[in-house]
């Protein structure tokens, strides 16, 4: 018999009587302003949150925050920052010297500043991690309060790869001292935009 059969047989023999699977309840939202909560949570996890009204303001903010950036990746038409030529990228390793990546976030979560990023809006899966600095553009309206609502919003149409990102890469593995910028992006800037602009 294969290991698979052996294991399944052992489980079948050893498992207890079926216990019920609980329904997932809705929990009340303890804050009035999810946007404010999101901003506070994001700052709490080391992200910078800015509000911009259009792409020009975003370009300005990126230039201001990352004046040294040479290689910037984005796919936003109308954003006046010379983007990476994606035609030239045929291997993810070529992104190793990327300074800034600007991507869309699908929605944010108020309780923990997590932003859902499905691969459908990523040109390369490794992009948000390999870049030195990450900018996520998020519509002000695209916020939910908690993780239950987040998964409700995702539904069951789960992408091949998707991720919640909350803040920049960090570690506290040396004496519990918090250090930002372990392996992923050193900084995270979240640009909140009115949804009409964010296309």
């Amino acid at each position, binding site marked *: 018999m*294969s*290991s698979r059969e*052996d*294991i*399944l047989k*052992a*489980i079948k*023999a*050893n*498992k*207890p009587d*079926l*216990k019920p*699977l*609980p329904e*997932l309840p809705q*929990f*009340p939202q*303890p804050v009035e302003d999810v946007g404010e909560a999101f901003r506070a*949570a994001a700052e*709490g996890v080391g992200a910078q949150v800015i509000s911009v009204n259009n792409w020009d303001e975003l370009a300005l903010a990126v230039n201001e925050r990352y004046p040294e950036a040479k290689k910037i990746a984005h796919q936003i038409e109308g954003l006046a920052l010379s983007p990476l030529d994606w035609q030239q990228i045929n291997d*993810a390793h070529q992104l*190793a010297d990327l300074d800034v990546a600007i991507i869309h976030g699908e929605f944010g*979560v108020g*309780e*923990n500043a*997590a932003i859902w990023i499905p691969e459908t809006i990523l040109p*390369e*899966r*490794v992009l*948000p*991690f*390999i870049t030195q600095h990450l900018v996520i553009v998020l519509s002000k309206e695209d916020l939910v309060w*908690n*993780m239950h*609502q987040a998964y*409700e919003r*995702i539904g*069951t149409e*789960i*992408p*091949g*790869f998707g*991720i*919640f*990102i*909350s803040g920049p*890469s*960090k*570690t*506290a*593995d*040396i*004496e*519990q001292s918090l*250090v930002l*910028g*372990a*392996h*992923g992006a050193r900084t995270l800037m979240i640009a909140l935009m009115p949804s009409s602009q964010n296309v």
Partner: protein
Amino acid sequence: MSHAKAATQFNQNQARTGWHDQALWFVRQKRDRQAVTVPEWEDLRELGSQIKGHMLSNMDEYLIQFEANAQANGVTVHWAKDATEHNKIVYDILQKHKVQRLVKSKSMLTEECHLNPFLERMGIEVVDTDLGERIVQLKDEPPSHIVMPAIHLKKEEIGDLFHEKLGTEAGASDPQYLTEAARQHLRERFLQADAALTGVNFAIAETGGVVVCTNEGNADMGVHLPKLQIHCMGMEKLIPRLADLGVFLRLLARSATGQPITTYSSHFHKPRSGSEMHIVILDNGRSNQLGRPDFRKSLQCIRCGACMNTCPVYRRSGGHSYGTTVPGPIGSILTPGIDLKKHASLPFASTLCGSCSDVCPVKIDIHTQLYKWRQIIAEEGHLPRSKRWSMQMAAWVFARPKLYRWLGKRARWSLRLFPSSLVYGPWNTWGKSRDLPDAPKQSFRDWMKKNG
């Protein structure tokens, strides 16, 4: 070595014991500060417990569902009965792809299987990429904590280690500087890797995908560059529904490190085009544990490490004193099921204070299980004869009130009259650092006879 012996050694350095205790208590306090912000915290714990309890009661069906959905996603699923089979499966996959360099993100499961030394013997370079794990790998030590592998080391020691292994400046111990050095060192490894291997935090039966939680981003830096990704999971990592993650991701990081969520919660479902994704499901004693009614709830564990941070014994004895892959309270109820004789001292490495059970995000009755393992260990004769004899004797006396009273009187009488040099000899472990209570002339019963 018994836990008590290892703990005694650990406690010889009093200042360091205090430092270790404080470092972990700090994490416990961070957990408290986060948990209290969630009004439904206790409801979430109950839900987490029920969801995992349900999964365990239907685990075979969920594994079949998980496998089918993963296969439909283009993922290859493997089944391993034990560590040996697990390691062979991983090696075979690597060999097929001619992998020479493997990057790993944190996986307690591969620690459990001793995968690294096995692959290294087979000539494959294995690099642990979680900073804490890389530190202990360079130091050639096992992790001392499942979430903070290098929590037992001081920054100066890590500075010396990095100086020797990574060429950082001698004497440099600033965590920022050391982390940056590790970032540069590991970035090279990420870019050169032929394959990536990760552990799994959650495996979703409904969608056939796995979720990996990291703060550093090392799982994603590893997985998205090479053309081969492998995820190794204990079969108890299953959850039925995608939406169950709403419960578990709210509990996990808050319990583990006191963060509202980990920086990265990666949901891997399909390989990149042109790449391969493999999932290895491991039993290694888990199905046996499922068959033990008193102990099966231990399989609900989501590996947050909160029981370690809260355990007053763990904090003052260090993870290595347990001599197991998973140390601390949860390890002390998991590992006796694998080798009772070898780990017989672990269920006794506790005061049964119950803090572990109260902190556990999935409500495992850890201290009750410790109590129950003690019964089995005593029954199967794994305790010193002297202890067995004295306990049997005590039980015999306590069932005989007259004898108890007579002996009690003797004991008090001896304590009062014997010189302290006779009372506090080397045989008196209690008295090594503690005085005995003053023995009164009369017991309460004697008093009642006169006054009652």
